């Protein structure tokens, strides 16, 4: 049976044990290292399908490990840190991390993030072809027909402005993934907008009013305060 291999780079033995047990229990092959250097060399020698990376390592900064590995590999990396700083989170995500978990976290949370990251990784690979994207994206009761530029909810057409459509499309393409303000602004508004998150917040508010039952209890696009947004992933229901 094919087992996906996960590399855990974490200096705290207790946490590492916990993660290793949980992951092995879930049927992954797990390799743990206690510092950044071993982590990198393990990645070079044995390759992994996903990396869990603690930012506070004894020998080097976790961000350095992230940069090093990103030089040659696009393996999903989930950053795990006890430092709960919005800026650090956003930096890690902007620099190529796929997700960010703040300690303490639960086993359920850990597994959910790992599954999203892996699924995302496999899905991304073939779609990098540069042809015009006419995919129909479905998540729960939301459907986006990118060929026709139409959006549906519960089978009903919803009217989105071009900006709202672009925003929703970005999330539909990246379900489960935490997108930082910076990433979203860059992808939708272009580089010029930099850090002006106000325009993003307003667009998000109006989009939510069209796709969510209650915008303050969003079912689809959740807020990660100070960092960005994440679209929850659902089983697709087809309403055609």
């Amino acid at each position, binding site marked *: 049976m094919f087992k996906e291999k996960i590399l855990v780079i974490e200096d705290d033995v*207790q*946490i590492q044990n*916990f993660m290793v047990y949980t992951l092995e229990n879930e049927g992954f092959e797990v390799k743990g290292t206690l510092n950044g250097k071993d982590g990198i060399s393990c990645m070079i020698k044995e390759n992994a399908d996903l990396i869990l990376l603690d930012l506070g390592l004894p020998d080097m900064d976790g961000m350095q490990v992230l940069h090093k590995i990103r030089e040659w590999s696009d393996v999903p990396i989930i950053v795990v840190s006890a*430092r709960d700083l919005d800026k650090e989170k956003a930096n890690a995500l902007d620099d190529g991390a796929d997700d960010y978990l703040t300690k*303490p*976290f639960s086993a359920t949370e850990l597994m959910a993030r790992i599954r999203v990251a892996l699924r995302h990784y496999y899905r991304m690979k073939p779609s990098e072809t540069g042809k015009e994207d006419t995919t129909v994206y479905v998540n729960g009761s939301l459907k986006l027909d990118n060929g026709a530029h139409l959006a549906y909810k519960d089978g009903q057409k919803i009217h989105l402005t071009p900006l709202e459509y672009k925003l929703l499309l970005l999330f539909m393409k990246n379900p489960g993934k935490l997108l930082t303000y910076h990433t979203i602004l860059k992808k939708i508004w272009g580089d010029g907008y930099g850090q002006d998150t106000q325009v993003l917040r*307003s667009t998000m508010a109006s989009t939510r009013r069209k796709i969510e039952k209650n*915008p303050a*209890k969003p079912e689809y696009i959740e807020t990660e305060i*100070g960092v960005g947004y994440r679209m929850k992933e659902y089983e697709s229901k087809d309403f055609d």
Partner: protein
Amino acid sequence: MNKKNEWLLDVLKLIGIVFLITVLGQIFKQYEFPETNIVVIYLLAVLLVARFTNGYTYGILSAILSIVCFNYFFTAPYHTLFVNDPSYLITFFIMLITSILTSALTTKEKLMTKEANDKGEETQILYNLSSKLSDAADLEAVLKVTVESISQLLQTSVGCIYVGEQKNPVYVQQIEDRQIHRTVTNVDEIVKTYTNLREEYLEDLDSFGFPVYGKEHLLAIIKIDLKVEIDCLKQKKKLLHSIIENVSMAMDRIEITIERVKDKEKMERESQRANLLRSISHDLRTPLSGIMGTSEMLMDMMDKKDPSQSLLQGIYQDADWLKSLVENILSLTRIQDGKVVIRKEMEAIEEVIGSAVSHIERVHPYREIQVEIPDEFCLVPMDARLIEQVIINLLDNAIKHTKPEENITISTYYTEKEVVVRVFDEGEGIAEEDLSNLFKIFYTSNTHLSDAKKGIGLGLTICETVIKAHGGTITGKNRTDSKGAEFTFTLPLKEGANHV
């Protein structure tokens, strides 16, 4: 050189010059040069006298003396003060006027030159002083430069006492070539005397004291020995004032620098404190993470009916409680005394509420929070993390005091100037005796709360601190329309509406 000598010398010069010219005239007469030449050389005499003596007097005296001599020696009848030819009277008259004018012009020109020289010298002194002052790195150096240059200027011993706020008082004295440091004992008295001083200086037993005022307070006293020449002091008064002004500016500058260094040190201490807190949070979160994760994993691994399940549940809940305590303590220390300016950004209140509600529902999966928000949308300046903590604490509080089937609602609306957030429940409400103590630090209502629901009374204190730091208000009371408690907080819609 004293005044009397100077006067005598000038008279000697006057007599000498007129005498020499008269001798020269006699020679001219021997060779029978025309008389006009003699008149011209007497004019020369007046010019020379005016040039080499001080003041108008000698010039005019020499003019008169010249005419007398010319009359006596060179007009007929010789060796008398009479004249035969009355036209000489006109010659005398014109000669007198010409010599007076010449002497006046020469003297004036001489004075102007002197003034210009003096000015140049003053400028030089001030320039030297200010360049030395701007090189001075501390107050003591300023004092040294000050006493040195004033004592050079006035040729006497000069002292300077620093009495400003940034340093202990220092007294530096220049006596001839030596500088002496003295201790000052009666600083308060000095400051009091000079702060109320109306005259420009104060004379005491052994010195004239000139105060040096800074922008905000008295900086120093310059003490000039009483033995100084009063005339010299009076002459140089203007210059002395400029020097004092320069010194005051230099001292002000150094005081500001010292203050800046102090501020910087303070900020460094603050950031060290913040770093310490960050590392503590790191150190606490990691083991908590281990405890929570491991107990969770064990619960998963074990049979659901195993009696250890409830023990594990206990471990997990306690760890979770510790975790929220850590979060709360961190928020509190972040804002309460540190004068840390909270980092406000324009945020959507619905996002913050959404985030808090989803957090609460994750921790309490069996509870559902009702959320009501208006259709309109406004961005509100706030530190979203802290406001999220406030909402979490209010909801947590509501959950503690309600039964699972009782509703908890959070609703929000905008008024003209603020956004209002209400959290209300259908629970037991707030006891009468607790109402006035709700936001006090470490106050916990001691009514029927089981141990598992314990709180240490930090939650609401944090809410109040955070909201106040945002310039908003927070109140807690019992509902009037049904049973249950109601907490309301407001945040101003515009930045700068704080402290109203």
